[in-house]
C-alpha cells in the first residue's frame, strides 16, 4: 500500500471540485472510468467523452486548442493514458498553446481493466511535462490544493499541467449514455 493512500481523495471527488470551477470551457475526457464519472457528475455539451483511442485525449484537446486559440481547453487525463501517449507531452511543450490545461488524475493503476499497476509510482509525470516545456506544472495531494492550483491555472497562460494524486476508488457511474456521433455533434455545436 502506498503511504499516502489513506489520505487521498478519489478521482470523482477531485473531478467534482474541478467541474464546479468550469462553465463553458471545452473538456476532453479520456476513455475508461474518467469519462463515465464526469458524465455522472455533470453532463455538459462542452464535454467530449472518449470511449476508445486510449492515449489520445491530450492530442484531441491540442487540436481543439490550436483551432480555437481564444478558448481555454481542458483535458481530463489519467496516468495510464499519459504514459501511452507520452509523446504528446513533448508536442504540447514544443508548441506551447497558452490556452491548454492538462489535468492528470494519477491513481497509479489501469483502473478500468482491474487495477493493474502503471509505472507512474516511479515516473513523476509532472516532471516529464515540465522538462518537455509545459509552463506551469503542479502536483497536488488534496482538495484544497487542487482547487487553489486549478483556479490559478485558469488565470495564467499555459500550457499547464495539474497532476492530482487520487486513490483507486471508482464511482458507480455506468456507461456514457450518448452515442459517439451524438457526442461529436453536441460538442461541435457547444464550442462553435
Amino acid at each position, binding site marked *: 500500500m502506498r503511504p499516502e493512500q489513506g489520505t487521498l481523495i478519489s478521482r470523482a471527488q477531485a473531478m467534482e471540485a474541478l467541474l464546479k470551477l468550469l462553465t463553458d470551457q471545452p473538456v476532453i475526457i479520456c476513455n475508461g472510468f474518467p469519462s463515465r464519472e464526469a458524465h455522472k457528475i455533470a453532463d455538459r455539451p462542452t464535454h467530449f467523452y472518449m470511449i*476508445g*483511442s486510449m492515449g489520445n485525449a491530450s492530442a*484531441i484537446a491540442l487540436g481543439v486548442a490550436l483551432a480555437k486559440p481564444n478558448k481555454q481547453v481542458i483535458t481530463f487525463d489519467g496516468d495510464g493514458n499519459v504514459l501511452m501517449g507520452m509523446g504528446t507531452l513533448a508536442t504540447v511543450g514544443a508548441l506551447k498553446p497558452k490556452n491548454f490545461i492538462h489535468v492528470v488524475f494519477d491513481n497509479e493503476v489501469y483502473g478500468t481493466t482491474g487495477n493493474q499497476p502503471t509505472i507512474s509510482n516511479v515516473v513523476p509525470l509532472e516532471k516529464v511535462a515540465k522538462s518537455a516545456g509545459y509552463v506551469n506544472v503542479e502536483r497536488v495531494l488534496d482538495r484544497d490544493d487542487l482547487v487553489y492550483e486549478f483556479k490559478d491555472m485558469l488565470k495564467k497562460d499555459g500550457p499547464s499541467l495539474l497532476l492530482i494524486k487520487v486513490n483507486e476508488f471508482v464511482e458507480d457511474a455506468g456507461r456514457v449514455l450518448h452515442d459517439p*456521433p451524438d457526442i*461529436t455533434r453536441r460538442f461541435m455545436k457547444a464550442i462553435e
Partner: protein
Amino acid sequence: MIESDVFVQTMQDMGVNFFTGVPDSILGGIIAELMNRRLYTPAVREDEAVGMAAGAYMAGKTPAVLMQNSGLGTSLNALISLNMIYQQPCILIVSWRGQGGEDAPEHLVMGEVMPQLLDTVKIPHRTLTEKTVIEDFRWVAETFMKQRIPVALFITKGVVKGLHP
C-alpha cells in the same frame, strides 16, 4: 509530375485548413510547401496527428494528416475507435512506400497489404495520378463530406515533386 505548391493550393482551395502529420521523403516537397505557408503543425506520432486532426475538426477546421504508410499501422486504433465511431472525418495523405515490392525491407509488407488493410477497416481510398488529379481531389472532398469518416489518398513515388527532383 504534380508540383508541390499546386498540390497544396488545390487542398487549400478545397477548404482544407489544418495540416498535421509525420514526414516521409515522398511527402517532403508537400511538407516543405506547407511549412513555407505556415500551415503545418508537426506531430511526433501518426496517432497523435490523427487525434489533433479530430480535435481541429470538432473546432470547425477541415483537417488533413500526412504520413508514410507505416503510420497507418501506428494510427489504426485512433482511426477506428475515434474517427470511425464518432464520425469525425479527416483526409489522410499517405505515401505508398513498398509499392510493387520495390523498397527497403521494412516497407514491403505494408506496401503490399495497405489497400486491403484499409478495405478491411472500411476506410475509402484512392491513388493519386497526374492524369486524374482533378477527379481524385473531387472524390476526396465528396467522400469526406458524405461519409464523415477518414478518407485516404495514396501518393506514389514520383507523382508529386519531392524535395530533390
